[in-house]
């Protein structure tokens, strides 16, 4: 019985394990191996060289691009955290009927199920030179000339990130908040805490796991992004992934692979730092 059970367990988990092995572990291993390869204009040549890393790390463009990507991540993280926390707080503590809570939560999540590329495109009629934002501002008499920085700028990139990914903050923080025992809040009030004090000393600390999970999502997504930067910056900004893609299109696979390894290390270190704050399995 015992042994049969063990076999059944392995059989049950094998499809999942197999997918991760074939399409996650092996490909990442391939990237690492290829990052040491040599290449010329037509092919990649198996070798063990550090040259790809040297060229990457000695180039000022690399550092600038990494700086830009990190900057995007930090700014987006801060904004989505504030918005995500406020929205979850409203849903969890101010909406009283469970049905409304569910409905409003669904309203927030539905856009997540639609295409990101389309949601980016949908900013064009809004932010463009003759877009709604400029038209409205001109009609209100607030500006005379259309604002140029709205579309195809770093502003547009961050706006799009916030638009696309705030949900990744809302869901885990909302989840944390819903687990807070309501009697704790009453206890805080009975002990004489003001609304702000309850928020800062009771709710925020108890939401830390949710905040950490949301932050991990946001930071890893933004660090690996290239679509948003390419579409919304109008070619004025770069990101690490875009840099990789350029190398790919020039058939410099080992160079792209070296960059991929560096990006992967950066992401893993960032996540490891955040994971210290939270035990994800406890949160489910």
């Amino acid at each position: 019985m015992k042994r049969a059970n063990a076999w059944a367990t392995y059989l049950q988990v094998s499809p999942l394990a197999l997918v991760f092995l074939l399409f996650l572990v092996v490909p990442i291993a391939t990237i690492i191996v290829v990052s040491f390869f040599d290449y010329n204009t037509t092919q990649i040549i198996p070798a063990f060289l550090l040259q790809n890393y040297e060229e990457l790390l000695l180039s000022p463009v690399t550092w600038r691009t990494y700086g830009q990507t990190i900057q995007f991540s930090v700014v987006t993280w801060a904004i989505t955290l504030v918005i995500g926390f406020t929205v979850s707080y409203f849903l969890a503590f101010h909406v009283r009927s469970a049905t409304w809570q569910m409905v409003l939560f669904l309203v927030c999540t539905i856009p997540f199920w639609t295409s990101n590329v389309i949601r980016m495109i949908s900013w064009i009629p809004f932010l463009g030179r003759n877009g709604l934002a400029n038209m409205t501002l001109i009609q209100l008499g607030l500006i005379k000339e259309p604002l140029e920085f709205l579309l195809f700028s770093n502003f547009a990139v961050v706006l799009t990130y916030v638009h696309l990914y705030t949900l990744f903050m809302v869901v885990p923080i909302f989840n944390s908040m819903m687990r807070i025992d309501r009697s704790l809040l009453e206890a805080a009030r009975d002990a004489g805490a003001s609304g702000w004090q309850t928020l800062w000393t009771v709710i925020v600390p108890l939401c830390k796991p949710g905040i950490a999970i949301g932050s991990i999502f946001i930071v890893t997504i933004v660090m690996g992004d290239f679509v948003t930067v390419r579409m919304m910056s109008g070619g004025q900004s770069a990101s690490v992934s875009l840099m990789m893609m350029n190398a790919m299109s020039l058939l410099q696979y080992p160079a792209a692979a070296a960059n991929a390894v560096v990006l992967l290390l950066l992401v893993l270190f960032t996540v490891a730092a955040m994971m210290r704050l939270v035990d994800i399995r406890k949160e489910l």
Partner: protein
Amino acid sequence: MNGRRGPAYWLLAGFFALFVLFLYGPTLTILVLSFQGPQGGLTFPMNGVSVHWFKNLFEKQMVGDFAGSLQRSMILGVAVMLVTVAASFSAGLAFRSRFKGAAFIFYLAVASLIVPSILISLGIGLLFRVLGWDAAWFSSAFGAHLTWTLPFGLLIMFAVFNRFDRRYEEAARDLGATSWQTIRFIVIPILLPSLIGVGLFGFTLSYDEFARSLYTSGTFNTLPLEIYGMTTNVTTPVLYALGTVTTGVSFLVIALALVSFTWVRRRRQRHGSDAGKAA
């Protein structure tokens, strides 16, 4: 939180309303603009109302292979959905007992979520190139999509099984059910709503996936790749028509999931079953 609603409530409610407007506003704008007249442009004002751009969308030579890529994305989405539901459910069952390597597989799932999509795409693309295989939407892209949907599926199954009352299974076993019968007639019906949820994740994540398809889909584009290609060379409202159709498909799938969700619930209530209370 108690008694009347103070200014804090209205302030937060206002903030929430603005957030919802921010989420939906742009999508509604392109929905309206996709019905632009034949002479209309990419921005307001509307120049008449027509379905010109929708017709335009389905004429093959005009805008690449929209119908073909839509079909491919649909097939891929359904395949990914089925595998995601089956594999996550089965893995969820396995994770209820301790086994060697459980922690390792769990960390693989987490890694699969946090490793940027473009790296997975690049890795699979490189792997196929090194092996001399041709990347295709039904092989490499299929695997790439699964690395994105399975972690979500597994985490959902963890959450679901954490709340699952094992006494139902014990009762079934006491009544003489085999393990397969227990799963088929007890566990699956109780968990059906969650499985629908996992399916919804599987389909829509795959249907909208861009980065993981980039180096893995080979010669024939999936829909997001096609749309992305169009953004660089199409400057007519046909782009918005495309957006409206794709978003429409997504909404249809969500509605379908919600309807089947409520249907399962209703049916349970009608049959006076207490099964739902465990899930």
